[in-house]
């Protein structure tokens, strides 16, 4: 590992920036290109870069596989939870719709409910996509290849 000094230093600088960029993509998705799917992939890529440079064991210590597994399920639950919340928070006499974000906030003039709903739903997508990509990466990287290196 020691020969890759420059790689290690540069990637240590870059990984936080990649995560910040991922969060920017996530929360700026309403105004420009971006959203939960892209941000989730970018954040997963930051961890994958860490694993490539510092090794799988370090990456597993930073982001444990248990967290990844719970995260994948938590994102789906956030998304479904928003849908159920819209069912429960609906005012009397309004039509009952799963994922009808207007029910989340009484301010219909500015569509604040829609903005809250999109924000929460994208958060669920972010959690699931980043966790799933990491889980798949861990699953592949956790296997030990039985092909000898001479075959390269």
């Amino acid at each position, binding site marked *: 590992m020691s020969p890759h000094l420059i790689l290690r230093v540069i990637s240590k600088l870059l990984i936080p920036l990649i995560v910040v960029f991922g969060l920017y993509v996530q929360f700026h998705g309403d105004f*420009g*290109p971006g959203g939960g*799917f892209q941000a989730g992939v970018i954040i997963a890529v930051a961890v994958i870069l860490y694993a490539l440079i510092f090794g799988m064991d370090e990456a597993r210590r930073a982001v444990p596989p248990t967290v990844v597994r719970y995260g994948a399920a938590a994102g789906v639950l956030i998304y479904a939870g928003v849908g159920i919340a819209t069912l429960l928070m609906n005012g009397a006499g309004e039509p009952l719709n799963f994922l009808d974000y207007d029910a989340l906030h009484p301010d219909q*003039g500015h569509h604040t409910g829609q903005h809250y709903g999109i924000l929460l739903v994208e958060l669920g997508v972010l959690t699931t996509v980043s966790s799933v990509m990491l889980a798949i990466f861990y*699953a*592949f990287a956790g296997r030990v290849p039985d092909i000898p290196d001479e075959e390269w």
Partner: protein
Amino acid sequence: MLEILAERFNYIPIIILMMIGLYVVIATGNLVKRLVGLSLFQTSVFLLYITIGKVFGGGPPIIVDDGHHGEDAGHGAEAAASHGAETADHAAAATDHAAEAADHAVDAAHQAAEVLYSNPLPHVLILTAIVVGVATLAVGLALVVRIREAYGTIEDDALNAADYSLESGSAE
């Protein structure tokens, strides 16, 4: 005929790319390369959808607001209208405001209608298809890895041979 094709020239390279993917899927026995061919085919279908949604002279489907004026006017109209309904005292003034604001909103809408945008619906379809595509690709690759562990090869001729020898071996 030539003119019809020239107006639709975008489909020709996309069909060729699709057929390249299909050829790789059929002709190669290596399961990893076959998945590569499948993803080539998939990406070509994405291209097909996106080119259909392209509008010449249009921009990306992100609405350009010329300042927040138009939006605010719209809100103003709604808010003023609701106020007008509530309070009878300021009804006259409020409706004045509402009318003025509504005029602004109409102006803004008129301006927005002149800006061309590409069709956003294919983009939405393909956006989710890409993410689902990588998820299914991962499942396919995981199956290939398991096949390699069970059989020691990922060439489908060798896999068939191994299966037949297994069958004849159990029959003995």
